[in-house]
């Protein structure tokens, strides 16, 4: 069977692929964060989601504040260089959000296990920290060859992986470059995937360090220029640091946040 990624609007992709109660990862490590896709999930009032992301960032602050999330699986929840994510922080401090907390190394390995089709990954990590006391997806495991005490973390059971990329072609082959985080794993490790792109082009060109996700592993491609703002898309636009700083005051105050939500 010939498989191509289907090219649709973002609204259609979210409506068709994201279901209430799903486990959804929106990835992008500072770079290429799929902000527009997150806001479309808010607009469509998806509920009870288990949200997965290494660095929750302001897009998850928005999803959490809007009431889309039941649970968060993450490894660092702050507004980088600015301070807290106040909707996230309030939800945790008020006990409104279940959390499953890891380190970056643990989360990265969970994505690798998912993309590899394995039930778990092994790393040398977490030993002596308080994380295993609070997170039941961190378990000790002994190396069968050397006897070394290591740590196992399970694959992420992702229903939908969502990323933003610079480009796709008309068959739905996706290309991204620069700092590409765990985006490859977020797509390969999920049952369904949505990739928003800056532009759809006739032919992808050669780029150093570029990651190409071939059309048969991508479910939907949506042209959403500027879809990563206020994060950045290398060779398209820079990170809007002022917007990250400005978010602090909006997120801090529930009423201001609700007013922001109305404008979405």
């Amino acid at each position, binding site marked *: 069977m010939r498989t191509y990624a289907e090219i649709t609007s973002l609204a259609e992709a979210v409506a068709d692929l994201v279901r209430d109660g799903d486990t959804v990862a929106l990835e992008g490590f500072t*770079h290429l964060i799929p902000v527009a896709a997150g806001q479309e999930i808010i607009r469509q009032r998806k509920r009870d989601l288990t949200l997965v992301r290494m660095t929750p960032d302001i897009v998850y602050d928005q999803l959490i504040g809007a009431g889309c999330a039941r649970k968060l699986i993450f490894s660092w929840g702050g507004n*980088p*260089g600015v301070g807290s994510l106040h909707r996230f922080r309030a939800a945790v401090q008020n006990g409104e959000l279940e959390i499953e*907390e890891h380190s970056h190394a643990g989360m990265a390995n969970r994505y690798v296990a998912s993309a590899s089709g394995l039930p778990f990954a092994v790393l040398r*990590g977490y030993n002596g920290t308080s994380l295993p006391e609070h997170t039941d997806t961190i378990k000790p495991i002994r190396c069968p060859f050397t006897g070394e005490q290591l740590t196992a973390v399970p694959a992420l059971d992702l229903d939908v992986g969502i990323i933003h990329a610079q480009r796709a072609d008309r068959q739905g082959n996706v290309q991204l470059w*620069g*700092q590409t985080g765990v985006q490859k794993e977020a797509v390969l490790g999920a049952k369904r995937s949505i990739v928003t792109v800056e532009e759809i082009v006739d032919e992808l060109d050669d780029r150093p360090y570029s990651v190409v996700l071939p059309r048969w592993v991508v479910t939907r491609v949506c042209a959403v220029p500027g879809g990563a703002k206020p994060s950045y898309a290398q060779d398209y636009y820079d990170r809007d640091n002022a917007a990250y700083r400005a978010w602090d005051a909006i997120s801090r105050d529930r009423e201001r946040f609700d007013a922001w939500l109305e404008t979405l």
Partner: protein
Amino acid sequence: MTAYESDEMMSVEAARQLRDVTACFVGIGLPSTGANLARRTVNPDLVLVYEAGAIGAKPPRLPLSIGDGMLGETADYVAAVPEIFNYWVQPGRIEVGFLGAAQIDRYANINTTVVGAYDAPKVRLPGAGGAPEIAASCGEVIVIVRQSPRAFVEQVDFITSVGHGDGPGARERLGLRGKGPTKVITDLGILEPDPGTRELVLTHVHPGVSAARARAATGWDLKVAENLQTTDPPTEEELKALRELINA
């Protein structure tokens, strides 16, 4: 001599620690300031590694975030995030990890997760990020943190990153391969683990700072080295480079 702030002294002293280092894993905030200053002063060849993937980043100004575009664009190589942790941090390929802390205890264990109980936090902090494995596996760790009784506590509320655990032999028992924290650089001086007890001891004060002041800014009965030394004040060149970096 130019007047300077205590934070400037801290960043200058942090940078000096990297004089003979090949590669340094850089946390955001104070560690990033120190590491970038080192590249502009004592060690132009220093390889800066950031957890979003940049190896050999040469940012023209201080990044706000760990994955800013200028880090990737100026890097020798950009690795995917699983590769950064699995191929570079885990095998101990990075000589020094430069970390910050919200709380640190007498054994240099670090908390960046939560103040108060985990399930009913007084303050929810961002969490672990890359720090636990950096602290476990980098050759050694240098912590940069402002000294106050709130930050320097008898016992951390949560061990996000292991320093020297509960004392002698703890790192070996846990199978942690790096040496752990070898220095804690503060705005008041330098603390180093005692070779026997592994407890942090005040070994240096910055010019004009008394040992009594450093002890008062510490939440446990901080021991002072018999041979307490005073760090050198920032040179004109160091201050100029630091101010250019911060204002760039």
